[in-house]
């Protein structure tokens, strides 16, 4: 089993946080994950992309071109990476910021992550909404472990983020 996950957006959207939580959760449960970060060094609002390979076997080579699941957090990197979605893959978009209609041989999940997060109290939690949707789709990581990790990471701000994550899960599960 080997799944290639890409999360892409711009700096400051918490892309690395998402990826790290996901990776940590997988690793805690004995799975394997690698994460390659790509970002412009110093430009705020610069591009930021996390390429994660997930497997139940140790991973040697972590590089991939096309992803099985791609999460789009911002408009900026959309054009570049929409062409790098695998045939039959999954696309998860924050539909609040991406007005495009992805077309191709893949499943599209639209997550109004910004508005959900705003409703919950902080638009910055939209990455956790997206993470929820991703985790639901990936169905490899244990949501409870993820929540644990969110708690460790955000401490007193954890509740809102867990809530956001759960909302995302719901959408991901298609509820």
């Amino acid at each position, binding site marked *: 089993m080997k799944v290639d996950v890409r999360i892409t957006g*711009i700096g400051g959207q918490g892309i690395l946080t998402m990826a790290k939580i996901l990776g940590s959760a997988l690793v805690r449960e004995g799975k394997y994950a690698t994460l390659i970060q790509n970002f412009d060094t110093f430009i705020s*609002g610069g591009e930021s992309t996390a390429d994660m390979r997930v497997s139940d076997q140790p991973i040697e080579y972590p590089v991939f071109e096309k992803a099985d699941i791609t999460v789009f957090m*911002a*408009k*900026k990197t959309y054009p570049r990476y929409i062409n790098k979605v695998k045939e039959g893959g999954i696309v998860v978009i924050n539909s609040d910021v991406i007005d495009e209609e992805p077309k191709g041989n893949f499943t599209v999940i639209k997550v109004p992550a910004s508005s959900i997060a705003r409703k919950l109290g902080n638009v910055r939690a939209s990455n956790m909404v997206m993470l929820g949707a991703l985790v639901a789709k990936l169905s490899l990581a244990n949501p409870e472990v993820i929540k644990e990790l969110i708690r460790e990471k955000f401490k007193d701000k954890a509740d809102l983020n867990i809530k956001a994550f759960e909302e995302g899960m719901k959408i991901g599960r298609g509820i």
Partner: protein
Amino acid sequence: MVKWRIEIIEDFCKGCEICVNICPITNLYKVGKVDKPVLRMSERFGYQGYPLVEVVDPTKCTGCHLCDHACPDLAIHVIKEE
């Protein structure tokens, strides 16, 4: 009479709002001394993904050149027209 034309190279603008803030007319507008500012931030986004500045009322412009000297991105240019 001197008139001032304001050219914005939108692909260059990064929406930093410095021109808007440094423009003396913006302040006058804020305190209600004039009805419109020369510059303000638009709802549009530019090539680089940032919000763009836009010209509201060029006739208010005094040609003081603060905005175009201060713009970090060489994106705004105040041009004298007779």
